[in-house]
């Protein structure tokens, strides 16, 4: 219980601290507005050109709401890799390691606090923009309930991916290149631009075998097409990938600790 309360306190403190970044939040909202507007025009043109009301069961309104949710997930994705880079490069990791807490759990709690703020602000503005562009989503209540259930696990899974990339800082000190590859993989293979159901079937089965879709596409799909059976499967795969990645992170972290050098000391 005490253990949980310390990480909860870290998450709350991190959320409070991130409220200070008002300027950064504002600039992100402008970016989000532009992106959603561009994709709205793009999808409008695609629907008009194909002269259809639906693509694989998705209406234009649903696609826009899907995009709004995936953009929120991507724009609030963790910034943990530069923090780990800095901790390792400058030796600042020492400050965290002399305390009675786990460094990866500290980063997870701190990240979830930060993401809660970023996601809340982003979703409020993305929701307003989507509402303005295409009106309210159908099945709003059930969709919201499903996405609220799927989102926390999606964020933890995304964090573990970034943490794993960040831990390579113990070997190469600068993981920005790796983080960029990981974020682009999440963007493309996770289905940020369009639902995985719209990919060719051969790709779909490949992408379903990777964790990215359970971070981005899975929760967004549940928002526009809520489905309790599909939600159960999504949560199951999210938990499975979290366990797998947590084990890999634990292994890499144990090796990384042995590599702590004296940077900045």
């Amino acid at each position: 219980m005490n253990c949980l309360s310390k990480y909860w306190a870290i998450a709350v403190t991190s959320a409070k601290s991130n409220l200070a970044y008002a300027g950064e939040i504002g600039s992100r909202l402008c970016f989000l507005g532009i992106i959603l507007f561009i994709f709205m025009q793009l999808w409008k043109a695609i629907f008009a050109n194909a002269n259809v009301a639906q693509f694989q069961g998705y209406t234009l309104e649903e696609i826009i709401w899907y995009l709004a949710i995936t953009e929120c997930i991507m724009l609030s994705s963790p910034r943990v890799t530069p923090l780990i880079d800095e901790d390792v490069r400058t030796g600042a990791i020492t400050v965290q390691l002399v305390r009675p807490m786990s460094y990866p759990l500290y980063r997870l709690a701190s990240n979830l606090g930060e993401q809660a703020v970023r996601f809340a602000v982003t979703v409020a503005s993305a929701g307003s923009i989507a509402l303005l562009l295409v009106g309210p989503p159908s099945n709003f209540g059930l969709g919201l309930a499903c996405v609220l259930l799927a989102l926390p696990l999606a964020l933890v899974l995304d964090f573990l991916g970034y943490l794993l990339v960040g831990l390579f800082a113990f070997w190469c000190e600068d993981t920005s290149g790796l983080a960029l590859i990981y974020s682009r993989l999440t963007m493309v293979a996770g289905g940020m631009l369009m639902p995985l159901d719209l990919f060719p079937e051969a790709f779909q089965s490949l992408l379903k075998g990777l964790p990215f879709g359970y971070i981005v596409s899975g929760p967004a799909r549940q928002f526009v097409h809520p489905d309790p059976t599909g939600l159960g499967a999504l949560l199951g795969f999210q938990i499975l990938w979290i366990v797998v990645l947590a084990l890999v992170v634990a292994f890499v972290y144990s090796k990384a600790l042995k590599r702590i050098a004296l940077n900045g000391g």
Partner: protein
Amino acid sequence: MVINMNNAVEVENLRKVYEMHKRNGFFRRTKAEVVSVDNVNFSVPEGQALAFVGPNGAGKSTTIRMLTGILTPSAGYARVLGYVPWKERSHMAYHIGAVFGQRSQLWYHLPASDTFDLLAKIYNLDKVEYRKRRDELVDRFRLGPLLDVPVRKLSLGQRMRAEVAASLLHKPRLLLLDEPTIGLDIHAKQQLRELVSEWNRKEGLTVFLTSHDTGDIENVAERVIIINHGRLVLDDSVENLRRQYEGLSLEEALSHIYGLEVESEETEDVPELQAVG
């Protein structure tokens, strides 16, 4: 090794060797070993204020990181407050405090009071006891008017007072201070030194200080250990060191000792000054 329970820190034949890779041409790399700490022995009784000094690259930080359990030694033994640091780091962490002059533990955008509250949770402090302790520290470190100001708006001196107060919240038995006065003005330095000394006397807090500032050593420490090239070259009281180098400032004395070390390295003589106990 015979364990003396009155010692806060016990170190025996502590050694750390780093494996480095040297680039040889564009693709080839060769392995080289660098001895950072070389068979160091010392102990620190509970309640003592010790200055652990040496030039840059002498092995100070490596020793401290082994004593905090962050690094595992290549050989040798250490016990800090009865714990083997690299095996029992998380248990030991409840009993030690640390201040690193160049790295802050305070949340930059939040008032120090938020970090204090968070540390109370991290160290599982009882609410009533925490408030009592916090109020005492706030009073002694004159943090009252600063407590609700975001850390980014504090001066360096004010921030360092808050850093040290934060590190004392959980009543540690050992306080590690790594360059605590770096960048501070004379007045802020003196304030900080007095506060650390007061806590050392008042609570019997063991202080393990590293600093290049001889003022820190003279004002805070009663004993000084000098390490150079990974080896312990002097272990004596600050008073004896002053007496030995009468007429010289402590800075000049240290510079002389470091210089002797370099000469002895060059001539391969046994350092005359070695007063290791």
